[in-house]
């Protein structure tokens, strides 16, 4: 599931780069996210490198012009696209002087087309208040993709100041979903720890389970465990919605490691949701465990939700047989069922 979501995010970013509608690239959804990312970087290099010589000369020429005049020319003649292409070629101190004189809206326009990899030194040199002002503008424009591209390039103190400027938990989930360098999602969670219950509630209320599951799937073992127990403490309505989302997306490969991280009490609470007892759901869980090798994660849950009747069990077997996976269910039924306990999710260790 995470892979499918990442593909979607990558296609969105590629469409933005090429200036086309997302639907024009729908046929790329058969390509893995890692390959899409590599191709997007190749295309980015092509677009930025094609005029590299001329852009370098523009950057050099800008130093001959007083800053106020540079700001005027930047807005009147160059526009945000070319300013973005030139930004990474400026000396960071000069770039910051120019940026400080530009309207926030124009800087936001530049950020939308800027390749942060090519302007990392400049981004790091921009004062925190200016970054926060631009972040607020980008949030107002719902530019989650742009913010997501920048997060990894911000200094920790700047990120700390910027996160509160994303007050809507739905915006935070959307930024996290498209964020590049998702190994820093734990940092983001650390800065928004008091908002974790709100993130889960928002995923339910705004139908953002895909974004929430993707976020959790990239976190450390410790953060997964905390979020797993927070999720299990939600109402039956929220948990049923989560089960339905895992079934419909499909996303059991993302959700099973989370259930494995639940405490025994939380897991029993989750397993008691009627929706999870449905044969179609149980079959999907077994198939996801088989495909993603998540048997360790599924066994504690399986002990609590195995079909209650022969008829239900037969229905599960039939559903699995329909995709020729009877060997997997046989392995599951034959496997020992350990006592429910806090499992070992497949997330990264934080240490």
């Amino acid at each position: 599931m995470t892979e499918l979501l990442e593909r979607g995010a990558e296609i969105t970013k590629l469409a933005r780069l090429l200036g086309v509608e997302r639907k024009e690239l729908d046929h790329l959804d058969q390509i893995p996210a890692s390959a899409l990312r590599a191709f997007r970087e190749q295309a980015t290099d092509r677009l930025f490198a094609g005029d590299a010589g001329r852009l370098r000369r523009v950057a050099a020429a800008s130093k001959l012009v007083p800053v106020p005049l540079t700001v005027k020319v930047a807005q009147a003649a160059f526009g945000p696209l070319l300013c973005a292409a030139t930004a990474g070629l400026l000396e960071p101190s000069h770039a910051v002087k120019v940026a400080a004189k530009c309207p926030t809206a124009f800087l936001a326009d530049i950020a939308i087309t800027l390749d942060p990899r090519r302007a990392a030194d400049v981004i790091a040199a921009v004062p925190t208040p200016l970054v926060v002002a631009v972040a607020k503008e980008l949030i107002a424009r719902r530019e989650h993709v742009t913010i997501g591209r920048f997060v990894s390039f911000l200094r920790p103190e700047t990120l700390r100041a910027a996160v509160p400027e994303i007050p809507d938990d739905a915006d935070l989930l959307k930024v996290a979903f498209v964020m590049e360098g998702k190994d820093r999602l734990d940092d983001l969670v650390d800065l928004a720890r008091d908002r974790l219950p709100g993130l889960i509630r928002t995923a339910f209320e705004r139908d953002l389970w895909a974004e929430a599951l993707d976020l959790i799937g990239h976190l450390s073992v410790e953060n997964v465990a905390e979020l797993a127990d927070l999720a299990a403490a939600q109402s039956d309505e929220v948990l049923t919605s989560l089960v339905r989302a895992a079934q419909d997306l499909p996303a059991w490969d993302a959700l099973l490691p989370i259930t494995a991280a639940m405490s025994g009490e939380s897991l029993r609470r989750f397993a008691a949701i009627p929706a999870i007892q449905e044969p179609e759901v149980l079959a999907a869980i077994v198939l996801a465990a088989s495909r993603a090798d998540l048997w360790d994660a599924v066994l504690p849950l399986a002990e609590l939700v195995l079909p209650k009747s022969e008829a239900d069990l037969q229905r599960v077997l039939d559903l699995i047989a329909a995709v020729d996976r009877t060997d997997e269910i046989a392995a599951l039924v034959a496997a020992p069922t350990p006592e429910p306990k806090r499992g070992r999710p497949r997330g990264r260790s934080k240490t």
Partner: protein
Amino acid sequence: MDDLAAAVQATPPPEFDVLAPGERTALAELVERAAQERSALLDRAIDDSLRHLPALVRLPVKRALGM
């Protein structure tokens, strides 16, 4: 080198081999079009920027731009 490799001036990831020839060509055309639009925009921007500069600084800037 096919259209797509020529467009990005590199070898695309092998996973892109699953695309039909027509899909590869269409994607290559999108990359080419974006590159050409960016280059044309740069041409216009350089011309426009010179018009905004006082005569005193226009000459050194034109030299720096290699014009």
